[in-house]
């Protein structure tokens, strides 16, 4: 019985090939657009993430400054009203003191892929009369590169030269042009404590994150410790990367209680990035579902037309003893075939469109062409959504067909 129903469905599909092709095209466009939109949005999100993580680690441990202990009287005697003006906080430790112990603790965590110590400080970069405030970052050359891939953004000089040249400085491209300096020129660095020292520019980087390029300079971590007269354990920031940048919460939960400094994930410090990425996902979803919905209406229309054309045949089938369920099966099977074929071609077309768009030049913010991501789950979801749409769009007319009263049709 099933095979008979399917045979009838097949004959219906193949006898009106044009209609079938139009219906299949509807699904194809819907699904290919779904695939394309999602690949594009995911591509944009991935690029955004990559750009963000050129200067941002997944988790950061740093000294958040002293707690607010300006009114100790109220802390000890909560009911007493006291007023202290111009409080001075005497005991204040700068930076992370026991960085070696924390480093080895962090390295033992299974999901950690890299950790690098930094000594960051705000300084003035000076070239004769030009003064620009910025951040001087003392880094461990190899681990820093492993986390942030800085060597890839070098536009002059070599990143690894930082390791051997203790007075060598690598500065951002924006900072270089603000100070009108080039590789091999010297600039002067002035710290907030009043120390000054001359450094030689050995490289220029460009991350395309404007704020970073205009204010940041890298120095070997030991050279910065020397500048600050600090010991070999002194660190201001520990930057940690994990396997999946989305999964930082567990690590933070585990480390934060045992480390006497602030442990902060990128999500906590950069919620706007997360929001942007989510919003783009929602837009992609809304647009592609709308397209699928339109395709669904197309299928609904075509199936309805088919059923109106075949209303006499349906009546005859019922007179001959085909049940309502058989009739539903016949027409639903057609919708499913249309959905399947449209889905398969749609995935292929979606891939082609994505690939073409991926090759369109787009030279802003360090990009060369439009970003695109190719993930299997985008394709699978597109196919499933397409199939679901055709099922609904096919079921309604099929149910209508199954309810046809043969007496009314045959008697005219």
């Amino acid at each position, binding site marked *: 019985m099933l095979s*008979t129903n399917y045979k009838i469905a097949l004959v219906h599909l193949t006898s009106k090939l044009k209609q079938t092709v139009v219906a299949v095209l509807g699904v194809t466009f819907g699904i290919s657009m779904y695939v394309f939109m999602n690949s594009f949005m995911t591509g944009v999100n991935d690029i955004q993430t990559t750009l963000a993580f050129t200067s941002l680690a997944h988790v950061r441990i740093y000294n958040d400054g002293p707690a607010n202990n300006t009114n100790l009287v109220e802390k000890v005697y909560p009911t007493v009203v006291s007023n202290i003006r111009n409080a001075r906080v005497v005991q204040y430790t700068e930076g992370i003191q026991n960085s070696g112990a924390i480093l080895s603790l962090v390295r033992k965590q299974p999901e950690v892929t890299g950790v690098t110590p930094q000594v960051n400080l705000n300084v003035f970069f000076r070239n004769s009369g030009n003064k620009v405030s910025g951040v001087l970052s003392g880094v461990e050359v190899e681990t820093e590169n492993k986390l942030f891939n800085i060597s890839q953004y070098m536009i002059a000089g070599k990143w690894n030269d930082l390791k051997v040249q203790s007075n060598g400085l690598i500065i951002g491209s924006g900072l270089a042009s603000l100070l009108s300096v080039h590789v091999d020129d010297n600039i002067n660095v002035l710290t907030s404590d009043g120390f000054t020292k001359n450094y030689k520019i050995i490289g220029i980087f460009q991350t395309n994150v404007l704020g970073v390029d205009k204010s940041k300079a890298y120095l070997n971590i030991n050279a910065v410790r020397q500048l600050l007269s600090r010991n070999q354990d002194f660190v201001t920031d520990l930057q940690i990367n994990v396997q999946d940048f989305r999964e930082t919460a567990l690590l933070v939960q585990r480390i934060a209680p045992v480390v006497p400094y602030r442990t902060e994930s990128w999500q906590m410090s950069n919620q706007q990035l997360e929001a942007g990425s989510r919003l783009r996902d929602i837009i992609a979803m809304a647009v592609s579902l709308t397209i699928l919905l339109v395709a669904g209406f197309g299928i609904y229309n075509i199936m309805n037309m088919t059923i109106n054309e075949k209303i*006499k*045949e349906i009546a005859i089938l*019922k*007179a*001959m003893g085909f*049940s309502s369920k058989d009739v539903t099966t016949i027409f639903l099977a057609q919708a499913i075939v249309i959905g399947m074929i449209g889905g398969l071609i749609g995935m292929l077309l979606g891939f082609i469109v994505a690939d073409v768009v991926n090759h369109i030049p787009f030279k802003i913010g360090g990009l060369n062409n439009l970003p695109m991501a190719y993930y299997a789950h985008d394709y699978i979801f597109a196919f499933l959504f397409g199939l679901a749409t055709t099922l609904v769009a096919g079921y309604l007319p099929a149910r209508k067909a199954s309810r046809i009263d043969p007496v009314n049709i045959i*008697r005219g």
Partner: protein
Amino acid sequence: MNTTPALKAIHITKYFYEPERFQVLKDLSFEVRKGEFLSLTGKSGSGKSTLLYVLSTMDTDYEGELLIGGEKLTGKTQNQLAAFRNEHIGFVFQFHYLLPEFNVLDNVMLPALKLKKKSRAEIKEKAYGHLKLLGLEDQALKPANKLSGGQQQRVAIARALINDPSIIMGDEPTGNLDSRNTSIVFDIFRSLSHSQGQTIITVTHDEDFARNSDRIIDMSDGVITG
């Protein structure tokens, strides 16, 4: 001829509600014997077609009781009735109503494929047998809509016969045919009822056709007048 009732109608009453309430069948009771060739006649509007569709089990909106082969059909669900029709009733309509996208052989085989009591090969053999009997074996693989009206009607008869139904019902089966084809169809019906013992109930306008059948039920204004 034996006298077991093939079909029994008890107090069949039916109303039309459009455009206004109107009693189209008025308390009809009768029996049809097995192997009987029965003609339903009457003017248009007499209710004969309406009666046929009630007897066919397709129209369930009536009062009274209908039994076919001793089985009570009143009150069964549409899907049960569809299965019953598939096995026990063959239909021949005025407008042949073949499935135009299928070839002649597929059209004939369809009700048997639905019934699924025989293998495909057996059904095919049987369908060829019927087509041969009706002089259509060389048309078997043509699309149904490429045949002439008389040929299509014979295909419809072959389709009605494929499951060996106990009753064959015809709604003006010769209404669209010329006199030569009419007599062919009549002869087929005659031989089915007399040699195969299949009961035949047809609605017809054709007086010759009716006169030559075993029995006439003549209707007027929803009652049997003869």
